């Protein structure tokens, strides 16, 4: 295990143990480890900053509520993403959030910013079964095995959805990528 991964694993174990004992600094420690990644994931799933902030906060509240049940067995991160995923799906069902976020912040050159808007829009238009593997594997750089565990599907099924999703996204983007390359 690389040093960074080992250090993170030990820190995660320490915070989970502390959380189960009611240490108030433990939730903050876990939030500092995973808060940004959960926010990015929920933002990309929901396409809206306010809903992503709500979903992130709710994810960590659920961690707190189930603090006595959590075990530092290496599966915490997968479980955390599963919670975030379920919350995103609930929000999408409630609000049918499929439109481009009005409060998204796009920086960089105008051309790159336009591309990001177009990609975000195309991603939002994809069916959820294609969007999820793209967000986890291509945007979050997550390993296929972990993404498959979060989605509760097999690795071959994940790869099949990922490959189809990339092709569907390419078809939606049309010539945009070529014009901005």
């Amino acid at each position, binding site marked *: 295990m690389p040093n960074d991964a080992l250090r993170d694993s030990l820190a995660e174990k320490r915070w989970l143990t502390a959380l189960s004992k009611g240490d*108030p*600094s433990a*939730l*903050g420690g876990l*939030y*500092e480890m995973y*808060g*940004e990644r959960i*926010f*990015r*994931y929920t*933002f*990309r799933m929901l396409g809206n*900053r306010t809903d*992503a*902030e*709500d979903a*992130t*906060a709710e994810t*960590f*509240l659920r961690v*707190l509520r189930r603090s006595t049940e959590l075990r530092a067995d290496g599966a915490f991160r997968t479980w955390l993403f599963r919670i975030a995923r379920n919350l995103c799906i609930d929000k999408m069902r409630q609000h049918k959030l499929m439109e481009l976020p009005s409060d*998204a*912040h*796009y*920086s*960089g050159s105008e051309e790159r910013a336009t*591309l*990001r808007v177009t*990609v*975000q829009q195309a991603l939002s238009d994809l069916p959820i079964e294609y969007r999820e593997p*793209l967000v986890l594997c*291509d*945007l979050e*750089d997550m390993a296929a095995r972990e993404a498959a565990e979060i989605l509760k599907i097999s690795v071959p099924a994940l790869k099949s959805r*990922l*490959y189809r999703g*990339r*092709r569907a*996204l*390419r078809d939606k*983007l049309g010539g945009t*990528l*070529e014009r901005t*390359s």
Partner: protein
Amino acid sequence: MNNELYSKLVDMYAGNELPAELEDQMELAAASNAGLNHDMTTLRRVVDTLHQGNDAEYTEESHHRILMKLYARGAEIQTQAPVPSHFQYNLPLQG
């Protein structure tokens, strides 16, 4: 080459999952096959664009709004970074 195998190889090429030797062979084949070349380059461009994506910026404002939501729901959370005063609630003066 059958269509299924062809598609799978292109998909793996796009995701940088092929060994270098096989990737070289794919690129060599694409040099004389415009359709294959288009399929390979456009799909890889999709993957590269997604990997470079910086669309979900985690701002300081979002960080503090999330913490505030947690505080408001009764979570005792302590982080190393102090909450700036402009994010704290102004309590009404008593008396």
